[in-house]
């Protein structure tokens, strides 16, 4: 009994190194950020910093760039369902009998691992409005006025959406493929016996079966869409006319271009609250779809 107790206490030893690090590098900065969001810390060294109460939060309400970035962020989310839908379709096809399955799987997954910066620069040239291969192709297909893509504020976000969807689709495919392995054969067979067509089986049997996975992918994708800004920072810097500015990028700019570190913390905290709401969704939803 005593030995068992001791063994339980050893549990703390196992997590201790991690816990210390997480406290220093995650928990403490998070609390610190919360405190900072109520200060007017400006400039690299923060001389003369004072607590200003809710002033920063009030400023957010009237900050048009913040509103725009917030709206853009939701538009940017579009790449998540797109990549999930295409990911599902490709996975279903891949899961049926095809040759070269492993090769295909690898090809689809590769972009997921590649640096968004590197690939962003490649897409930037592909999307070049006058000479880039994409628009040249479109013009050859008879579209006289192809979009200006990254150069026009009306279409820039869509170009970013294409890049991001392309990048994360591989992840979705792999996850779906694994989930499809678990679809019970009997279910499919039974449906077939009833004379259901292939697409009906997909729609009525397979899709519902993997729907928890779909939810999982949507949530992960959406949370990440509120976190990553490297691609956008490198490719457009948020422009033109702020059309690709999203919240995480605005935090970065406010902090390290304008040196309004207090206000940047405020925006970051709001960003966290948004993501946290999504986390809660995941937490409450998980009982329905996580099966150990």
């Amino acid at each position, binding site marked *: 009994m005593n030995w068992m107790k001791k*063994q*339980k*206490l050893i*549990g703390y030893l*196992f*997590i201790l*190194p*991690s*816990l*210390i*690090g*997480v406290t*220093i*590098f*995650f*928990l*403490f*900065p*998070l609390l*610190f950020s919360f405190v*900072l969001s109520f200060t007017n810390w400006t400039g690299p060294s*923060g001389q003369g910093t004072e607590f200003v109460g809710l002033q920063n939060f009030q400023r957010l309400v009237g900050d048009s760039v913040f509103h725009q970035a917030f709206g853009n962020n939701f538009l940017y989310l579009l790449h998540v369902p797109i990549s999930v839908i295409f990911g599902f379709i490709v996975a279903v*096809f891949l899961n049926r009998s*095809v040759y*070269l399955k492993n090769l*295909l799987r690898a090809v*689809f*997954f*590769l972009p997921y*691992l*590649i*640096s*968004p*910066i590197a*690939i962003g*620069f*490649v897409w930037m*040239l592909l999307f070049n409005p006058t*000479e880039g*291969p994409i628009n040249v192709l479109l013009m050859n297909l008879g579209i006289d006025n192809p979009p200006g893509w990254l150069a026009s504020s009306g279409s820039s976000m869509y170009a970013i959406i294409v890049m991001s969807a*392309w990048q994360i689709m591989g*992840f979705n495919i*792999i*996850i779906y493929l*694994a989930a499809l392995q*678990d679809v019970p054969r009997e279910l499919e067979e039974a449906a077939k016996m009833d004379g259901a067509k292939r697409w009906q089986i997909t729609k009525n049997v397979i899709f519902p079966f993997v729907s928890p*996975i779909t939810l999982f992918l949507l949530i992960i994708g959406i949370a990440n869409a509120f976190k990553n*800004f*490297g691609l956008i*920072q*490198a490719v457009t810097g948020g422009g033109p006319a702020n059309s690709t500015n999203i919240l*995480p990028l605005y*935090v*970065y700019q406010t*902090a390290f271009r304008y040196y309004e570190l207090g206000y*940047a*913390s405020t925006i970051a905290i709001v*960003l966290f609250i948004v993501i*946290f709401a*999504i986390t809660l969704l995941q937490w409450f939803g998980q009982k329905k779809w996580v099966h150990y």
Partner: protein
Amino acid sequence: MKQNKQINVYKTIMTAVLLAAGFIMIIPFFWMLSTSFKSPNEIFEYPIQWIPSEFDWDPHKRVWFGDLSFFNYYFNSIKIAVLGTAGATFIGAMAAYGFARIPFKGRDFLFLLYLMMMMVPPQVLFVPKFIMFDWTGIYNTHWALILPTIFTIIGVFYMRQFFITIPNEISESAFMDGAGHFRIFFKIFLPLAKPAIATFAILDFSWNWNNYEDALVFLVSEELYTVPLGLDNFVLEFSVDYSGMMAAATASVVPIIIIFLLGQRYIIEGVASSAVKG
């Protein structure tokens, strides 16, 4: 016989369709590689010259032997990614074992805390980390990137999911034999978890290799720059040198592609099982 043949026709068509789709997926890579060998006036030629009429090695020379050499960036990135990944794998695996197999008091609360931390956007931490790192003197050193990644949260989560699936009987019988948790962890779980650990290590390496945001904020001296930052810098300096840009992009993705080719079974299966089983 006849039926068999029919199936094969269907299978062939499906394969062709997916190959076409897959081709679209990797076109950007081909284009990048091919452009990196082109002279400026060839870049936007139409129809696209997939194989340049003449291989121009200059762009690659500019990347590797120019004013901003990628050798240094490579060295820095490898250092950060290797140290960060090694630390994260070990510390993460330990914590994962603790969370998965030892029912100590407060475990669920702490795990919930970890899950919450996973949702914290890195931007929330930028400013306080900037101030803290500055204060402790690790700002603008590689430690500013290595230390936080060692204390991985997603790694703990990921490896915990794997440890949970290991049947209880295995550790229970070891317990009966008088083995403590440390022995069980090192002698039984680590060897069993090799595939999961390998998967995590490869993924973590690629995240560390690709980490642009943190490097952007926490590294300022050019001699400390990592590959993504170096790439960004290259593009800033030579904004119209498109073939150089593509050569630099190529340089920055090649290591990941090699690692992926070597470990793709681990990665793909590992990623899939963690998410679905978890």
